[in-house]
C-alpha cells in the first residue's frame, strides 16, 4: 500500500466504524439500506470516486478494494460497490448524471442476465434509481423509481426483482458485452474485498470473545482445539486479500494479462476476479462458521453480531453464482487454450 492508499484506508476505516457497523446493519433491516449513512458518505464525495479525475474521481481499482474491505469489515448497508462500478460504465458512455455522481440517485448493476424482461434478485434492486443490465448483446439502462422494499432474504440485503421495461439501449454488440464484462469483473473484485472485510472482522470479534468467555475456569481461547480452529483463518484471510489485490492490480494495468495454468503464472483480470470471488467467498463462509460456532449458543442468538456477518458472508458469496458454477466459468477461462473444448 502506498501513502495515498494508507490515507484512503484511514479515512474510510473511520467513516465506516463511526457511521455504520453492526448497529447500522441492524437498524436497516428489512430494507438493507442506511439512507442517513449514505447521505453522510455522499458528503465525502465517495459515490463519485471511481470515475475519471476530470469528472471528480480518480480512484483506481486498487484504491477501491481498500474502501470495499473497510465497508465489509463493518457490514455497511450501503450500495457503494455497485454504485461506483456502475458510475464507471455510465461515464464511459457519456451518460453520467450529476445526481449519480453526487449519490443523490443510486446506481446499480444487474449482475445476472435478464430473462423474459425481468431482472431477478438484483443486489441493489430495492433501492437503485438507475440500473445497468445486459440482455443478450444489448446493454440497457433502466431509469425508474425503485420499490424501496426488499425481498426478505438471508443477508438482509436490498434485493428485489425488477421489471426491465422502457429501458434505453446504451450499447450493442461487442461494445455492450465488453463494457458489461469489465463492470462485472470490477464488481467481483470489490465484492471479494468486501468479503475479506467480513472475514477479518469475524476473526477479530471471535478472538476477543474466546479471550473473554470462561468455561472450566479458563478462557475458552486457551483450549488448543479452539486455538487450532481459529489459527487456520488468518492465513486464509491474508491469502484472499492478496488474491483480491492481485486482481485489482491486473484490472488497473493497461496491457492484457496472461493465463499460464501449468506454470501457475496468472495475470489476467477476469481470471483473477473470478478466483477472488470463489476464494474470498468460501473463506468468509469458513471464518464466519468457525466464529459463530466458538460463540456457542450466543452466536446463534440475534443479540450477538457474529450472526450478522455469518449471514452476509453467505449472501454476498453466492448472489452472482453458486461457487461451483463460478468455478466452471473459471475453468472455461483457464482451459480455453488447453483441452478438447
Amino acid at each position: 500500500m502506498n501513502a495515498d492508499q494508507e490515507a484512503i484506508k484511514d479515512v474510510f476505516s473511520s467513516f465506516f466504524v463511526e457511521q455504520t457497523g453492526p448497529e447500522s446493519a441492524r437498524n436497516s433491516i428489512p430494507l438493507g439500506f442506511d439512507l442517513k449513512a449514505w447521505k453522510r458518505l455522499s458528503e465525502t464525495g465517495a459515490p463519485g470516486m471511481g470515475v475519471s479525475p476530470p469528472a471528480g474521481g480518480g480512484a483506481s481499482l486498487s484504491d477501491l478494494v481498500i474502501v470495499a474491505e473497510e465497508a465489509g469489515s463493518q457490514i455497511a448497508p450501503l450500495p457503494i460497490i455497485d454504485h461506483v462500478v456502475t458510475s464507471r460504465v455510465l461515464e464511459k458512455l457519456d451518460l453520467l448524471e450529476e445526481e449519480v455522481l453526487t449519490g443523490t440517485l443510486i446506481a446499480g448493476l444487474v449482475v445476472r442476465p435478464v430473462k423474459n424482461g425481468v431482472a431477478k434478485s438484483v443486489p441493489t434492486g430495492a433501492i437503485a434509481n438507475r440500473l445497468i443490465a445486459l440482455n443478450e448483446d444489448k446493454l440497457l439502462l433502466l431509469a425508474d423509481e425503485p420499490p424501496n422494499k426488499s425481498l426478505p432474504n438471508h443477508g438482509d440485503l436490498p434485493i428485489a426483482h425488477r421489471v426491465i421495461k422502457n429501458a434505453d439501449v446504451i450499447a450493442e454488440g461487442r461494445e455492450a458485452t465488453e463494457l458489461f464484462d469489465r463492470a462485472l469483473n470490477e464488481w467481483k473484485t470489490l465484492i471479494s474485498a468486501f468479503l475479506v472485510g467480513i472475514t477479518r472482522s469475524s476473526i477479530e470479534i471471535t478472538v476477543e470473545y474466546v479471550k473473554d468467555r470462561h468455561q472450566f475456569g479458563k478462557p475458552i481461547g486457551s483450549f488448543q482445539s479452539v486455538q487450532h480452529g481459529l489459527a487456520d483463518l488468518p492465513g486464509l484471510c491474508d491469502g484472499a486479500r492478496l488474491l483480491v489485490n492481485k486482481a485489482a492490480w491486473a484490472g488497473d494495468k493497461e496491457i492484457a494479462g496472461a493465463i499460464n495454468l501449468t506454470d501457475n503464472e496468472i495475470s489476467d483480470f477476469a481470471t483473477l476476479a473470478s478466483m477472488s470471488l470463489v476464494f474470498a467467498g468460501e473463506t468468509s463462509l469458513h471464518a464466519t462458521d468457525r466464529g459463530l460456532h466458538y460463540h456457542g449458543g450466543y452466536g446463534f442468538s440475534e443479540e450477538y453480531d457474529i450472526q450478522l456477518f455469518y449471514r452476509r458472508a453467505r449472501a454476498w458469496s453466492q448472489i452472482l453464482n453458486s461457487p461451483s458454477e463460478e468455478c466452471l466459468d473459471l475453468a472455461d477461462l483457464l482451459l480455453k487454450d488447453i483441452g478438447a473444448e
Partner: protein
Amino acid sequence: MDFELSEKAIDFRSQVKKFIENNLTSEIISNMHETGTFNDKSFNEALASEGLLAGAVPGYGDRDPVELYLLFNELEKAGAPYDGLAVTMLVAGIINAVGTEFHHEEILKKLLTGKHNCCLGYSEPDYGSDVASITTKAEKVGDKWIINGQKMWTTMAHESDWVLLLTRTNSEVPKHKGMTMFLVPMATPGIEIQPVPTMASERTNATFYDNVEVEDQWRLGEIDDGWSVMGIALALERGVMGGTNPAVPLLKHVLNWAETTPSKNESLMINNNLMRERIARTAIINQVGQLLTLRAAWIAATGGMPGVEGSMAKIYASEEYQKVVGWFQQMAGAEGLLSFGAEDAAAFGWIDYDARHAPVTTIYGGTSEINRNNIAERHLGLPRSR
C-alpha cells in the same frame, strides 16, 4: 506487496527456467523416484557452474529472498530433485550467519560447488515436535567432544558430508538452554546410517552416533546455545525454500491425463464438470499458495522476519495439496491407484505418487499443529496451550 517482479528478478527467473529446460532430463526425474533420493549431485553442480547456487543461500551474496523463492519455486514446479539442495543451502545460510572462518573455508565454500550435501539431525525417536527435549548427548572430554545418541528422519544422510546435529550438553538447566549445535563430518568413525523406507518413493534415514569424537572446531554457535542456532535456521527457511507449490506439477500431470482419458460417458475427462470445477479450485489454491509464499519472501526481502507468515503458507500449501490429490485420485478410480510403470496408470503413476507423498508434507518441517500453535500464540495473541 508488489505483484510485478523487479527486472532483476524476472531476469533471474528466466535464467533458472532456461537452466531447467537445458539440464533437467527425464532420466534425472525417473532416477530420483527409483532411488528415493531427491538429490542429484551432477544437477547441483551444473546449477553451481551456472552461478545459480550462490543465490540459493539465504542471506548470502546479493540475491534477495524473492530470488531465493523463485529458484526453489521453479525447481518445485518442474518436479526437479531439490530436497537435498534445499537442506544443504539452508545449512550454508546458517554457516553464513553464525559460522566461524573455519566453517566458511571448510564447509560453506564446498557446499557452493554443488558437489557436497548436508543433512539435518534434529528429531529423535522419542522427540519430534518437542525437539527441545532431545537427549543425544555431547560431552566435553579434554579438548574434544564425545557424542552418543540417535537421530530420526536424517533424510540425505547417505548423500551428505556433514550433519547439522543438535545435542544435549547440559541437563542441569531448562531444556532450551542446554543444547549445542555441531556440524559433524559424516565420515567420522562411530556414525551409522540405516535407511528408513517410506510409503512414497522417497527414502529417509535413522542415524546412530556411538562415541563419535569431534574437535571443538566443528561446534556451530556457542556452547548450550544450540536453540538460537535452531531459531536462525527456522527464520532463514521462511517458507521460501520450496514446498509451497506442490500441486502445480500435480495439476500439469492431471491435465495431461484428463485431456487423453475418456470418462464413463465416453467424452474426455477434461469435459467432465466435476473435473473442471476441481481443476479451477486447484488453480486457485496454487495462486494463493504462491501469493502467501511471495509475501513471506517479500517481508524477508524488506528486512522483516516472516515467521508467522511462513507458518501460514506452510499449513495452507501442504493441507490443500493433500486435499487436491485426494480429489484427483478418486476421480481416476481404480487407475488412480496404479503406480509408476504400471500399464494404464493414471497420469503415468503421478497421481498415485502424489497421493503417497502428500501426507508427509503436513508433517515434516514443522507439523500443521506446531504451525497452528505458532499462529495462535504469536498472531492471534491467544495464551500458550501446552
